[in-house]
């Protein structure tokens, strides 16, 4: 317990190195710190709870396996979300029950979300739980790159520069992705 308390004060970079050496306390602290964000990303990415849980578990297995390859001085968050994104893509592809999402389908025209009842203020239509679900569905129906950029920017609060690092892209490309994503969402949600 005392050892875990000491670990709690350590940086992610130190913890990942300890995890590489099989340190179980380091693992516990990393899970405490990051599992919620990883789960949030994967559920928003796939829309499937069971798949999102598997992704979160697989991410930590990959973190452990690749921990020794972590280069000190690299931004941990960028490294973490690169693994989260790749794992989400891999598992979503390999899952046989591709429900509403399909990575292949994403490259085509996104599915249109049916319009909600007429309302003088279209923004207000999205306040209910059901509407929130439709927004989430619209995000899931975006092409993979747009979806990743939207989730990381608007839900995880990463900067365009950090997202560019994760997607091995440029800041300008990420900005362009986000603008296209917004246009797609406006169309899908009929705002």
């Amino acid at each position, binding site marked *: 317990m005392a050892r875990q308390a000491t670990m709690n004060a350590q940086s992610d970079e130190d913890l990942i190195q300890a995890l590489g050496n099989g340190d179980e306390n380091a693992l516990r602290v990393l899970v405490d710190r990051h599992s919620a964000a990883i789960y949030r990303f994967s559920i928003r990415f796939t829309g499937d709870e069971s798949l999102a849980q598997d992704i*979160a578990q697989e991410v930590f297995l990959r973190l*452990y396996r690749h921990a020794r390859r972590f280069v000190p001085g690299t931004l941990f968050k960028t490294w973490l979300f690169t693994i989260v994104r790749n794992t989400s893509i891999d598992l979503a592809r390999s899952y046989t029950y591709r429900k509403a999402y399909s990575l292949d389908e994403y490259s085509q025209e996104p599915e249109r979300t049916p319009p909600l009842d007429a309302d003088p203020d279209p923004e207000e239509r999205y306040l209910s739980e059901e509407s929130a679900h439709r*927004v989430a569905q619209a995000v899931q129906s975006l092409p993979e790159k747009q979806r990743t950029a939207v989730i990381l920017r*608007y839900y995880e609060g990463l900067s365009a520069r950090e997202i560019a690092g994760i997607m091995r892209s440029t800041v300008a490309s990420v900005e362009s992705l986000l603008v296209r994503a917004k246009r797609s969402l406006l169309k899908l949600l009929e705002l």
Partner: protein
Amino acid sequence: MSCRKWQIQIYRLHEGELDRESEAALLQHLGTCASCRADAERFSQIDRVLQRVPEPSMPPFLAERIVTRVIEQIREDSAQSTLRRFFGSFAYFRPAVAGTILILGIGLGVLTGLNLSPSINTRSAGSSYDVLTLAGIEGGGSDSSLDFIWTDADGGGR
């Protein structure tokens, strides 16, 4: 600049990443272009809509499930690397160990062979002895021991 290009500037304005000069140029364009003004409003709207989606909460069991699975992997890897280290320490002696096992094997085979030979002979001798015993000629061995057969058959002695 085409109106489509202004959209990136609108995005940057909302992100607070536009320098003063670019911001002034954009605001001037927005003052004259109704289409871009509408885009700017719609972009703000989508930002607000996105923020209103409630944060998904992680199932309470998931953290423990992850920890259990990864610890299982850590321990499995640790056991494997211990075994590898143990056998790895014999790496230099491997040819010698293989040679010793081979010689021991041959030696054991020869010894077993020598041991088996007399026992096979004994068994065959025993079996023939047993046939004679059954025939009731135990202790015999000479032709005379078979005399009784003829004696009985003839109904008298020789």
